């Protein structure tokens, strides 16, 4: 090997601690990038394959009832490829030993057992035999949650009739990758199931023989889906169509697409921080190395090595560090990515996960890291390489010191000499001190940005489920019914208070924008379900007009006073102009709210309700559940407490994963920055510190001088880091907000404390490692070296 290459390896080995710290930071950055992007790619690829292999539909529509012959009219719409009609119904289940409300969506499968579209993946057991009205295939997640296997049974109320159902198989479906029931905030595998039953059996139960109430279809390539939606709506209007929608609005698909967006947003923020810090560290270390090797450079140039030879020597040093970091980062990133994929599989029920790491991702990681490394170091390298040999042979001039700003104030006089050394040293290199502070503060900030979610989500749940919704249960009826239903519910033992509500699906339009959601009609003076303004204070619903979720106002571009066009998608489908009279704070979903009577008038109906909010005595809950299951008009029941508990249970693993990864990564930045600063400072100042030892200073006293500077910089960095972290959290919250949910920009004190603690611990650790070297300064050797 060439002698110069040996120098390179040995120089790297000599600075292995610093190089390792930088490599760790690069590994963190690249690993985060690879993890996030590869997870996104993997989920996307898995979804695409699952959709392809199982014929996921592109257009969906529900309706009241249409004869089967309408299918052919749909199929004849230009651009429609395949059509499948179905019977779909919401049912209540009764699981033995599980005394909580369970609902399910019951979906028909063709009598030949082979759906054309939205085919199901049988994981265990078999498909139903179409003529058997007691056989079902259940969603695999529900089966796992209740430890069901083919052969087990449970009860169900199907169109008001009680039935025992036999499980013949468990399955997954591209239509239900995410299984969240309407009104829910996260998958609840114990309390919500998807069931598949033969078309004939289901049709008979719901008086749908030779008819359908749900249709899915695919379109030919190149066709504009919106045109198809309009034509399908026009056709199904006659049959009580509730409005068709494309794949992009299908709940399961939509949630996953939002997830991708979040991953992509994160992949743009966090890796940038790490690579930025690595660039700074490389700059400091390499410029220091070139500085201390001036004479070696002079010698090499004296013997005929060109500027380019010298430059390439140090550039190779940089590239080696960067490429080692990238290699490690890719390996760790793949490992994290697969783990993260596993976490996502808890929510998104794919039959398999196709992990993919695109070469483009690795190439991007490589060139971005190399470019950043060179950006941070080329100037110093070139400056050193270009030095005329004669000048390079002259030692660097001694560091310039001058009186600091503080010396002009009285405080200076009370400071000890060691403290003065600390302060003057910080002031001597203001730029480097500032960059060190920024580097450490970024560690703090990234920790906050990665972990603020937990506290913010807690707040979100608190607002949505404790301040806004105080009902213990929400009961929904199969179809809009008279307000007299409230008496039936009030009569149940243990029910303390009942408030009814009306919910209608509607398309809201303002100028050229529109959005499909539901309008909730609430009783005035209600005590269970509150609307909160943007300051989270409860407001009274005006008797006329519509109040919108604040984000919905943004989507539509409306403000109070504007006139909204409301196109109801149910019953007689009235089209009305309704004034917007307020905006309310809502973190989950986007809905409109009206006074119940005003909504009834808009619907031209007589005091109809869709459901009720109940407050109940907790001791009577089990009995109330049982009674509600038996009530024919009740479609389902949601228990608020169960929703919250389930939410935290399902989120727990994901949050733990993210917190763990975030802590690790923030720790590497803090460690990397402080350790490198300490090592460089040590190499620059060993002579000075050794002199102090010779003069009689103890190890503790010189540790104070040396580490005191780093401690001061770390302490200065923390408040800055908290501020930057808050800013980054706000940016992240804004970047991921959507109509599905919005994260409040709320950083809890605990999040700040944890971030500061991680930084302090990392800094202490690196200080402790360096202190070891300080304690073992070879006084004689250091003092012998010429200045």
């Amino acid at each position: 090997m060439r002698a110069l290459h040996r120098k390179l390896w040995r120089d790297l080995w000599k600075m292995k601690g610093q190089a390792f710290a930088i490599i760790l930071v690069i590994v963190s950055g690249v690993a985060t990038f690879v993890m996030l992007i590869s997870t996104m790619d993997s989920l996307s690829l898995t979804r695409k394959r699952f959709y392809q292999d199982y014929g996921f539909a592109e257009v969906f529509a529900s309706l009241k009832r249409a004869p089967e012959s309408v299918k052919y009219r749909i199929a004849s719409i230009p651009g429609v490829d395949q059509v499948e009609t179905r019977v779909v119904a919401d049912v209540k289940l009764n699981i033995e030993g599980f005394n909580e409300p369970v609902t399910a969506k019951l979906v028909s499968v063709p009598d030949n057992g082979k759906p054309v579209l939205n085919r199901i993946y049988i994981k265990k057991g078999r498909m139903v035999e179409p003529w058997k009205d007691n056989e079902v295939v259940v969603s695999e997640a529900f089966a796992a949650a209740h430890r069901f296997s083919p052969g087990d049974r449970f009860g169900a109320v199907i169109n008001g009739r009680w039935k025992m159902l036999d499980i013949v198989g468990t399955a997954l479906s591209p239509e239900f990758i995410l299984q969240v029931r309407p009104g829910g905030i996260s998958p609840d595998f114990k309390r919500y199931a998807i069931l598949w039953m033969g078309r004939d059996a289901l049709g008979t139960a719901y008086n749908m023989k030779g008819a359908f109430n749900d249709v899915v279809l695919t379109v030919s390539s190149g066709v504009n889906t919106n045109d198809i939606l309009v034509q399908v709506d026009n056709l199904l209007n006659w049959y009580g169509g509730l409005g068709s929608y494309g794949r992009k609005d299908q709940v399961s698909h939509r949630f996953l697409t939002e997830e991708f967006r979040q991953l992509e947003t994160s992949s743009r923020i966090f890796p940038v921080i790490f690579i930025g810090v690595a660039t700074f560290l490389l700059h400091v270390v390499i410029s220091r190395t070139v500085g201390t090797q001036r004479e070696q450079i002079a010698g090499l140039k004296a013997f005929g090595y060109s500027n380019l030879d010298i430059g390439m020597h140090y550039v190779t040093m940089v590239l080696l560090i960067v490429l080692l970091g990238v290699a490690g980062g890719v390996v760790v990133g793949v490992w994290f990515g697969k783990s993260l994929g596993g976490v996502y599989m808890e929510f998104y029920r794919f039959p398999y996960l196709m992990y993919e790491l695109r070469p483009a991702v690795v190439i991007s990681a490589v060139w971005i890291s190399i470019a950043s490394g060179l950006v941070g170091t080329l100037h110093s390298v070139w400056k050193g390489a270009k030095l005329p040999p004669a000048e390079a042979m002259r030692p660097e001039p001694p560091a310039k010191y001058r009186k600091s700003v503080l010396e002009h104030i009285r405080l200076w006089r009370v400071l000890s000499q060691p403290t003065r050394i600390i302060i003057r040293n910080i002031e001597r290199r203001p730029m480097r001190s500032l960059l060190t502070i920024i580097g450490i503060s970024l560690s703090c900030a990234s920790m906050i940005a990665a972990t603020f979610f937990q506290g913010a989500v807690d707040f979100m749940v608190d607002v949505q489920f404790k301040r806004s919704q105080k009902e213990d249960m929400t009961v929904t009826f199969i179809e809009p019914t008279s307000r007299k239903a409230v008496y039936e519910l009030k009569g149940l033992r243990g029910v303390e208070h009942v408030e009814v509500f009306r919910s209608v699906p509607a398309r809201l339009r303002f100028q050229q924008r529109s959005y499909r959601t539901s309008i909730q009609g609430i009783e005035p003076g209600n005590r269970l379900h509150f609307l909160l303004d943007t300051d989270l204070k409860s407001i009274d619903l005006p008797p006329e007009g519509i109040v919108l979720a604040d984000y919905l106002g943004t989507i539509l571009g409306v403000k109070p006073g504007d006139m909204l066009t409301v196109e109801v998608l149910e019953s007689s489908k009235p089209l009305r102009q309704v004034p917007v009279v307020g905006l309310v704070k809502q973190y989950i979903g986007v809905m409109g709210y009206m006074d119940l009577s005003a909504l009834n008038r808009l619907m031209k109906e007589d005091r109809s309700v869709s459901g009720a909010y109940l407050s109940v005595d907790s001791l009577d809950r089990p009995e109330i559940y049982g009674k509600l299951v038996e009530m024919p008009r009740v479609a389902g029941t949601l228990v608020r407490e169960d929703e919250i508990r389930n939410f935290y249970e399902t989120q727990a693993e994901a949050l733990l994963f993210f917190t763990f990864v975030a802590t690790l990564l923030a720790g590497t930045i803090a460690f990397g920055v402080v350790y490198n600063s300490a090592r460089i400072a040590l190499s620059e100042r060993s002579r000075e510190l050794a002199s102090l030892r010779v003069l009689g200073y103890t190890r503790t006293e010189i540790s104070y001088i040396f580490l005191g500077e780093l401690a001061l910089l770390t302490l200065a960095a923390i408040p800055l880091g908290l501020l930057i972290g808050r800013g980054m959290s706000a940016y992240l919250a804004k970047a991921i907000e959507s109509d599905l949910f919005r994260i409040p920009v709320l950083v809890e004190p605990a999040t700040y404390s944890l971030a500061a603690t991680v930084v302090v611990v990392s800094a202490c650790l690196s200080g402790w490692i360096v202190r070891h070297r300080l304690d073992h300064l070879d006084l004689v050797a250091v003092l012998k070296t010429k200045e």
Partner: protein
Amino acid sequence: MNHPTVELQTGPSEIDRKIVFKVKGLTKVYGMAELEVHALRGVDLELYEGELVVLLGPSGSGKSTLLNILGGLDTATDGRVTYREKDLTKATEKELTEYRRFHVGFVFQFYNLIPSLTALENVAVVTEISKNPMKPADALAIVGLGERLNHFPAQLSGGEQQRVAIARAVSKNPEVLLCDEPTGALDSATGVVVLEALHRINHELGTTTVIITHNADIAKMSDRVISISNGLISKVTRNTVKIQPREIHW
């Protein structure tokens, strides 16, 4: 311009030998305006093939500056320096690099060895880029360090380090060997060993050797002594009787 009291003593040897370096009106100024330092004020000089020359002068006299310009490490402010027929003062950066690579060997006062390379590797770092080098081990043998090939500079004494530096300088078979205070950091006994190495190389390989020193005793081993003072050559003396390095003490 030379000082009026210059005593130039020439003899038959200068007429017979080829001129290696020709210096005419060499001036070097550092700094700007009030902070200008006139390191060289118009030096005229000729150096001949195979001779051992000592540049003698006190600290700040300009001898290192002259050596650096002869070696292509620094550039002149005014005047002309030719190496054989090559005008060094008009050479580009690339040409100077080539000149140093193939023609010049340097020895520095503080050795300038690469601490992360062994003695053998410190020599190899030069032979690997030379046209017609000797083997690194052979160069080290010339300076009597055949047994210390795999030692790092930190494991060598000052004298040994300087001898490694000399081996490095001669390993490329340079035509010219320029030594800036090669014994400046060494005690008398060690310095003599170094001087003996330089003397042997000059004598056996015929390398034109220029040694800078402020020590007048060392000057006695040379063919000629060029005294420099205040940026000008004050005197050029030929040693009709040269002493051996081992006879030198300081």
